């Protein structure tokens, strides 16, 4: 089985600075493999090991998604090889454009049976890219996947849905977005990190892919949401019962109880 793992190299918005006009300064935020994507790497590795398949990592984004550090971070997590589309023309690309580029890359990799992705990215966090990717490919797309295991003729997919824990027999190509319930990702060891340097990386130029035109949203204006207007009264809890009494009194005064 040939499995592609779509992962994102992204900064945590927690570390970004937002100006009053809503513009975001990322200079103090460092990129990393998006927090939940290692779950997809691990699920893919386990599936491939059980079926004798290959795991191909795939990321698309600005030129910065292809640094030596970024390559190593991905390749040390159980991939066989990496495909990257890194181009500054994708710096502010929205989800549908990213999905269109990902779809073109999946097509160019060829003979892909399954795409695994994270449940949502650390920066955008909308859980939409994998589902739009499925749309671009004309494949089945399923989110909330809490388990993927091999079966005789394909893959057994488990999903944690409001209607219940749903089991499916998957026989065709699909994009699956996995939650942290699926598997516990490995922590890369020294061997994995050293091995990463030897694994092949294919850099695919954006212009080499057949990507359809995608309409982008026009930003009219921006703002920074009102936060930080909380009182911020901090009580020392060394003496727990006096701290508790002080808090209860304050909450009663604030009519919060």
């Amino acid at each position, binding site marked *: 089985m040939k499995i592609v793992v779509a992962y994102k190299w992204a900064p945590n918005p927690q570390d970004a600075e937002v100006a009053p006009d809503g513009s975001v300064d990322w200079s103090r935020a460092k990129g990393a493999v998006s927090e939940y994507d290692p779950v997809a790497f691990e699920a893919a590795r386990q599936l491939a090991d059980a079926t004798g398949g290959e795991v191909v990592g795939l990321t698309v984004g600005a030129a910065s998604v292809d640094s030596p550090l970024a390559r190593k971070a991905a390749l040390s997590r159980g991939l066989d090889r990496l495909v990257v589309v890194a181009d500054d023309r994708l710096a502010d690309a929205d989800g549908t454009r990213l999905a269109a580029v990902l779809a073109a890359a999946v097509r160019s990799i060829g003979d892909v049976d399954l795409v695994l992705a994270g449940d949502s990215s650390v920066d955008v966090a909308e859980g939409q890219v994998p589902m739009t990717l499925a749309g671009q490919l004309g494949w089945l797309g399923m989110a909330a996947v809490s388990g993927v295991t091999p079966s005789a003729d394909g893959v057994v997919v488990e999903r944690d849905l409001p209607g219940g824990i749903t089991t499916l027999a998957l*026989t065709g190509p699909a994009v699956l977005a996995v939650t942290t319930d699926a598997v516990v990702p490995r922590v890369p060891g020294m061997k994995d990190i050293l091995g990463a340097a030897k694994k092949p990386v294919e850099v695919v130029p954006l212009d080499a892919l057949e990507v359809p035109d995608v309409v982008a949203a026009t930003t009219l204006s921006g703002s920074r949401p009102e936060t930080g207007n909380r009182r911020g009264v901090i009580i020392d809890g060394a003496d727990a019962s006096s701290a508790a009494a002080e808090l209860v009194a304050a909450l009663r005064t604030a009519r919060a109880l």
Partner: protein
Amino acid sequence: MNVSTQTWIVVADDPAVSGLVTTARGLGGAVSAVVVGRKSVADSVARAGVDEVLWLGEPGDGAPVEAYAGEVARVLAEAGAAPLAVVGATTPAGRALLGAVAARFQVPVLAGLRGATLEGDAVVVERSVLGGIAERRVQVVGGPSVLAVAAGGVTDEGTAAAVREVPAQPLGAARVTDVRVKEQTGVDLGAARAVVAVGRGLKAQADLDLITDLAAAAGAELACSRPLAEGVDWVAKERYIGISGQHIAPELYVAVGISGQLQHMVGVRDAKVVVAINSDKAAPVFAQCDYGIVGDLYEVVPALAAALRAGS
């Protein structure tokens, strides 16, 4: 591309569509629905305040709802002029339908919606982006505005729109073989006046008793951070707060042993009073609370429960 005044809602076998209908109605034009799933859902949507329902037929042979996503997009594309807007739910299946629609028209999906209005003949969308750190007013020119919104509840407007069946061919890639119904907790955190939430500061599942006791003393519902509901199974999934969990606005929110990461705190941005209990005085939660106690939850929580009971 010519854009009409027609708005569609796309429904993935879920009668809870009030959020979709409200957003679609706000755009002024006619509102039609495409419904994937059971006839009973199509009938329910027909009474939820739409003008017309296209139903893709009873799903046969265990096809998951998502197998119809491409067909939903096709129905919209073939319905005449391109729609003004297409509104769907942020649920897992809702996002699959929206993804197919976005790919069909090659337009963005706009989530984090705070409002959508018609200005002239264009849809102007206010949305919260990047986990809630910034807000944007945006507009899509040259294609439908595809909007992802909270599903809302089930509504019955009294009158039923016509339901028309249109044939559809689902993808055959997957078949549902089993559904294990979960224990319904029936919890409604959104309605709770006070909520006590616990995070990874809790050392063992058995220690949850401490937290439920505090919740009882405060007349509060129990909630948690994501790591306690996913991965480990200490607390039910519908009780975790945050960007991918519940968004709530109680009078009082108490965060116990929760560090205060953005992805968690965005879920209680609208809470009236936020209290934090954390042993690390540098925890980010202290910069986002009204009252904080720096201390060990294993000492502070029982003391707080006792103080609440003593005063009442």
